[in-house]
């Protein structure tokens, strides 16, 4: 067995073990020591992910598959993990004494998400899904004041019910096909793909990942968790967890081509997610809740690509997910700085008043990320939506695409409301300009540049995504 294939996972596992040992010694290093150490360790994991990029192989009795598809998503999860660790430097919402636990659960969640990208067996899928979820449940409750426990409990119960439904669906699929590996299922299920049992099985299996993606009927947890969890945790849930869910859904639909009934169900979910997310976001005052509803709508756009299926559909979904991770992280970067500045964990729209005067740089990052989320050219969000919608048009989903475009127009309204607060409103009397450390400035600049460059020169990433889809399929 070749251990270099799973180098990033091994590195993360070692990091988890190290953090666990430190917790057992009961000696929490000072925040000034721990944050740079975590930064270095995370960079090491990133190097491992880059090193194993392009490797391919099948491991652990063919339950674990390393290929370009999985490695792309691992890099994406790593990028989200790195940004989260970076945002955690100025984390005032969690006690210093709980820092080690915080980083431990963060690393464990990242490990689970990386495993999700490689899992090709129902059992591996289940174990990695739960590793990621359990860590996230605890992370969302790990805050030293406020209404944290409530959101954590809600997240846990909705999530656990979703994974119970996943298990029931998985048992049906395994029973019909006589195998637990995705390849075995897709081999044996051919004649039965349209049977009610396999349809129910597939919908139930997707349930858990639609939950992670916060698509319509399973979105209830998102606004509450976004509102009450610590900002870096929310950033992690909004980026890495979504990327991992897209990875699993894409892999699953590649192995088991959906029947027309299933596509119809997904269409309805995408339709409802976009409509509900965008309409409710219009009324939100709390910026984190606004971003939660925006993520419900964005889940709808990603589903448009996934249900279009085929090389075009999946590769456009991968591209959009990458763009989504970047633009969402940029938005949360600004939110976390504003939260830090105002001393208010849940900044409201009014906290953004006059941001352009107080910190032109942050206002610019906010502008770029929100315009990209709304899909304005020449940013990454526009290019991503363009290829998503053209892939869906090719498959004849013209009504859904028309609806999605209309929805993008509606979404522009609430994104621009936030921009209006930042650019047109006057700051409150006597507020000083916001200082921004050099490191934060660099990360903000990198995020902005990557959003713009991805929008103007998308070809390299699109062709990478297409190759990834080719490598991730059955053959």
């Amino acid at each position, binding site marked *: 067995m070749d251990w270099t294939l799973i180098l990033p996972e091994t590195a993360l596992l070692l990091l988890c073990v190290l953090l666990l040992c430190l917790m057992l010694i009961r000696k929490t290093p000072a925040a000034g020591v721990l944050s740079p150490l975590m930064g270095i360790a995370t960079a090491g994991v990133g190097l491992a992910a880059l090193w194993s990029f392009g490797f391919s192989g099948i491991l652990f009795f063919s339950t674990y598959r390393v290929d370009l598809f999985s490695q792309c998503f691992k890099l994406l999860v790593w990028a989200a993990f790195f940004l989260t660790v970076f945002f955690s430097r100025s984390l005032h919402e969690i006690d210093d004494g709980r820092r080690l636990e915080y980083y431990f659960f963060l690393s464990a969640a990242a490990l689970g998400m990386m495993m999700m990208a490689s899992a090709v067996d129902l059992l591996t899928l289940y*174990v990695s899904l739960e590793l990621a979820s359990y860590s996230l449940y605890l992370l969302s409750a790990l805050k030293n004041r406020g209404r944290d426990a*409530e959101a954590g409990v809600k997240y846990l119960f909705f999530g656990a*019910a979703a994974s*119970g439904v996943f298990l*029931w669906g998985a*048992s049906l699929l395994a*029973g019909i096909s006589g195998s637990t590996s995705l390849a075995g299922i897709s081999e044996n299920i051919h004649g039965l793909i349209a049977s009610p049992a396999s349809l129910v099985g597939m919908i139930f299996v997707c349930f858990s990942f639609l939950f992670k993606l916060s698509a319509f009927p399973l979105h209830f947890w998102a606004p509450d968790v976004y509102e009450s969890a610590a900002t870096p945790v929310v950033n992690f849930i909004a980026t890495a967890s979504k990327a991992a869910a897209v990875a699993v859904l894409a892999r699953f639909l590649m192995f088991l081509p959906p029947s027309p009934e299933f596509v119809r169900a997904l269409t309805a979910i995408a339709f409802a997610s976009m409509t509900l997310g965008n309409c409710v976001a219009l009324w939100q005052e709390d910026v984190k*809740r606004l971003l939660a509803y925006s993520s419900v709508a964005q889940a709808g756009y990603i589903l448009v690509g996934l249900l279009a299926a085929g090389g075009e559909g999946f590769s456009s979904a991968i591209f959009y997910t990458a763009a989504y991770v970047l633009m969402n992280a940029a938005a949360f970067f600004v939110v976390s700085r504003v939260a830090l500045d105002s001393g208010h964990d849940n900044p409201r729209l009014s906290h953004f008043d006059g941001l352009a005067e107080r910190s032109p740089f942050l206002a610019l990052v906010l502008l770029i990320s929100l315009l990209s989320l709304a899909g304005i050219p020449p940013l990454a969000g526009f290019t991503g939506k363009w290829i998503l919608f053209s892939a869906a048009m090719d498959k004849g989903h013209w009504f859904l695409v028309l609806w999605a475009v209309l929805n993008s127009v509606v979404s522009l309204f609430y994104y621009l409301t936030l921009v209006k607060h930042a650019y047109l409103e006057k700051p409150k009397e006597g507020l000083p300009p916001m200082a921004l450390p050099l490191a934060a400035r660099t990360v903000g600049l990198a995020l902005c540049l990557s959003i713009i460059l991805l929008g103007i020169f998308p070809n390299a990433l699109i062709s990478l995504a297409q190759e990834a889809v080719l490598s991730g399929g059955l053959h």
Partner: protein
Amino acid sequence: MSQSLESYLFISSALFAAGVYGMLARRNLVALLISLELILNSASLNFVAFNRFLLADKTAGQVFVVFIIALAAAEATIGLSLILLLYRKKHSINIEEAKELRG
């Protein structure tokens, strides 16, 4: 009693339905946790039944069930600890009390 696959599937469907009903109808967090266990156990029952009658590899279903049991235990631990945290803040484990977050 005939031991057919159908009878096992019937029982597991009933357990699953009872679990989902409990999740929707009950308001006590511990009752919700119990309903959750019903759902997981119905899936386990499905796996062993399929394993006995249909699965090619006779170990696959059993291994799966062992994993489900282990992860369900971890889930109950996390669930109970969060319920305890909520109880310390609100002195209630009724989900109706956890209503500060809305909309």
